[in-house]
């Protein structure tokens, strides 16, 4: 049914349409609305027979899902950010045990510094966990991907993460054609577990495996996940036949046929990127977009084929690996190995910073002018960073970085204000630093509430 609905509510309805047997979840933003809605559905009796477990932690949530899945129940949970990291041990375990659990990850940054807004750092940290990862561009696609995820998970007996941008999608009201139970029933068969704890036919699941067979077990896990490269497009096709709309798949090309420049990205930012590309197309630029839906397994061949006709590609990605750079871009580079393509990685939108059309145009202008660095942090405040680097080099004290940045930024603002009043800016800045709420620790802002003590000693020793 097409309705104006919040993303998370649409996901809850789509998941409910898949008739899960067990839902176990712990609240964490921005995932919370999804499981709130599901708990209401279970409580009202709209999901007869389903069990809703209010667990004590995300670690408990994933553990309960493992237990439920092992006895043959269709199992669902959702999480985000720190929650995902808290359940990590069980996340790896679920895939190792071959439990077809479906989990929504409402993507969010990871602390410290604590930041509740969207980027892909959380799910990317689980790229080696053995889970499949599908990224949604819109709420419609997110809802559809959940239905497909149960099908894929249960056919492969592997867990699937459906990743959707926190807040940008989960909290956005959109027109969504929410999958309904009758439709889903035509597409998603009952869960028939490959292995199940059944007293009639007892098996031991989770035995200890030594060096003589561990490599083989891991190889088979890889082999099984690689089967998804064929299964995902197949499921996409069948979904389209039943639901009459195209969602999912491995990659989603947009205006690629004659494109010389391709922007590669994932998630909701694809919408903005497509708008920018449309505008540049109108100016006659040969530019296209490659959206990646399946990040695990990584569709190396599909990406290579999609990029083989272009001259250069730019990865715009909302996650990066500290110490090396873009994560998806390194995957893409290895996919096009041997092809002579210029490539750039642009880290953008970290911790919820908006990725604007203006910034993307600026990035493309730089690219055209040949001034785009191979590794670029979009909209990075150079002044602020350099000031901190200088301070760090001067004081040789690393300290809590975010607090230093906030303090430096405030001092700068105060200095500008004082300058406008006609006083000496350097002295003004020093005074502003000493008088800033962070420096004296009297009324620290919400962002740094607990960190005022180290900052205060820091600031005082600086004065001395």
């Amino acid at each position: 049914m097409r309705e104006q609905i919040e993303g998370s509510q649409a996901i809850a309805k789509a998941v409910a349409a898949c008739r899960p047997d067990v839902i176990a979840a712990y609240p964490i933003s921005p995932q919370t609305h999804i499981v709130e809605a599901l708990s209401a559905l279970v409580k009202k009796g709209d999901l007869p027979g389903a069990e809703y477990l209010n667990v004590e932690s995300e670690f408990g949530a994933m553990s309960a899902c493992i237990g439920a899945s092992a006895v043959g129940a269709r199992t669902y949970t959702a999480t985000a950010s720190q929650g995902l990291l808290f359940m990590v041990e069980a996340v790896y375990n679920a895939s190792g045990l071959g439990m077809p659990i479906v989990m929504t990850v409402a993507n969010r940054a990871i602390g410290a510094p604590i930041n509740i807004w969207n980027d892909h750092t959380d799910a990317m940290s689980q790229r080696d966990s053995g889970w499949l990862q599908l990224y949604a561009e819109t709420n419609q696609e997110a809802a559809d991907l959940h239905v497909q995820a149960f099908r894929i998970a249960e056919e492969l007996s592997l867990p699937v993460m459906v990743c959707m941008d926190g807040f940008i999608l989960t909290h956005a009201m959109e027109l969504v054609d929410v999958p309904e139970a009758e439709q889903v029933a035509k597409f998603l068969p009952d869960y028939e577990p490959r292995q199940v704890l059944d007293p009639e036919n007892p098996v031991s699941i989770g035995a200890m495996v030594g060096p003589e067979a561990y490599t083989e077990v891991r190889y088979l896990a890889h082999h099984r996940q690689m089967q998804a490269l064929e299964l995902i497009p197949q499921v996409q096709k069948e979904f389209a036949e039943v639901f009459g709309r195209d969602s999912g798949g491995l990659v989603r090309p947009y205006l690629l046929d004659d494109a010389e420049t391709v922007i590669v990205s994932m998630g909701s930012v694809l919408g903005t990127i497509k708008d920018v590309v449309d505008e540049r197309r109108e100016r006659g630029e040969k530019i296209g977009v490659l959206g990646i839906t399946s990040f695990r397994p990584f569709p190396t061949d599909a990406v290579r084929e999609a990029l083989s006709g272009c001259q250069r590609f730019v990865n715009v990605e909302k996650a990066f690996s500290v110490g090396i750079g873009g994560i998806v871009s390194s995957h893409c580079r290895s996919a096009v190995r041997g092809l002579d393509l210029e490539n750039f990685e642009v880290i953008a939108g970290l911790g919820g910073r908006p990725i604007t059309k203006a910034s993307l145009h600026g990035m493309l202008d730089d690219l055209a002018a040949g001034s785009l660095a191979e590794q670029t942090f979009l909209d990075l405040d150079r002044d602020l960073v350099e000031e901190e680097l200088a301070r760090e080099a001067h004081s040789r004290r690393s300290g809590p970085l975010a607090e230093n940045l906030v303090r430096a930024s405030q001092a700068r603002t105060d200095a500008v204000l004082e300058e406008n009043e006609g006083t000496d800016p350097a002295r003004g800045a020093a005074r502003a630093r000493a008088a800033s709420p962070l420096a004296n620790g009297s009324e620290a802002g919400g962002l740094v509430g607990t960190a005022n003590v180290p900052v205060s000693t820091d600031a005082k020793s600086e004065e001395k």
Partner: protein
Amino acid sequence: MSTPLGIPGVRQTEIPAREHVKFYQVGSYAVGNRLAEEGLRSVQSDPNRWNTLTSGHRACQGCGEALGARYALDSAAAASDGDLVAVNATGCLEVFSTPYPESAWTVPWLHSLFGNAPAVAAGAAAGLRAKGKSTRVIAQGGDGGTVDIGMGTLSGMFERNDDVLYICYDNQAYMNTGVQRSGATPPTARTATTQPVGPKPGNRFGQGKDMARIAMAHEIPYVATASVADLRDLEFKVTKAMSMHGARYIHVLVPCPLGWGSASNLTVTLARLATQTGLFPIFEAEGGEITSVMKIRRPAPVEEYLKPQRRFAHLFKGGGEPEVIARLQAIADRNIRRYGLIDEDQLDDDVLARVLAAPEDPEGRYEAILHAASETKQAQAQARTRNAATENPSDREDQ
């Protein structure tokens, strides 16, 4: 070219989940009250008894955990007619029973992680209920997996009153990883991380978790302690727990010859001495209230229990540590008084006097807290004096 690595093939064995046992000692009570009334007979005395944990696993000689697990799960299987699944935390029990490609379990069995067995079992119970099955769920783990790393998930399971029987096999340290201290290690015990060195050798007084009492505080339907010295009692408690629904907890003392440094043939003796001294009280509680205790006929002095164990050897070296042993005795005496393990009229006068005089906190928990608090107060007072002596108030903030 691939090298043959000698990967073992999976073998299907024909070991049945129910084993017909031929008893040779016909007419004696040697195999578990077989001639007693039906309700009083041991589960293990049934010639068609269950065989949940088969022999041939790789536990050490004299392993208390293997013994306890076998009796507990056989009883649970008998009580549920084999309609049960077992969830296992990481630990000795999991490692010695399932080295791939072998498994000693004839019941459906799942191992996930060290700290999540209660949550996995809760999920399994929920899944089975959702699938409309009446299959029962048992979770089991050692003391480390239960009182330390898994305590959060266990508390969650208690709080939700999930339909799971959780059995903790307590051998009082992390035996599987090389005998390190756990939250259930008793005071003064030597472990790999509480060495018998320094002025206060072994594990400190005033620490450790009494998981059975913590479980009682959750007011779950059933909590019990048991030991492998009284296997009939263990069977009875598991059977009783299986007749109930909701969260149930049984804490079983299982001596570990390797970790305790005791002879393999002393496992049952030591378990009995732990009870008979009063150091390990055996009781049942329902809804958070104690409903029964196993009485002690004659209290054994704690030395009898401590001496055969190498983990307490430092208490007896040289002139010995009579004060420390007296303190351990006080713990036993306090338990005797707290749980009413012996009726007053059964006690010799001197023992009665000792029991009545035992301090309420021989573990030294309050003492440690008070000590820490007094130190804090002292530090505060010192700081105040120092500050009063300082003239410049702006410097005071930097202290």
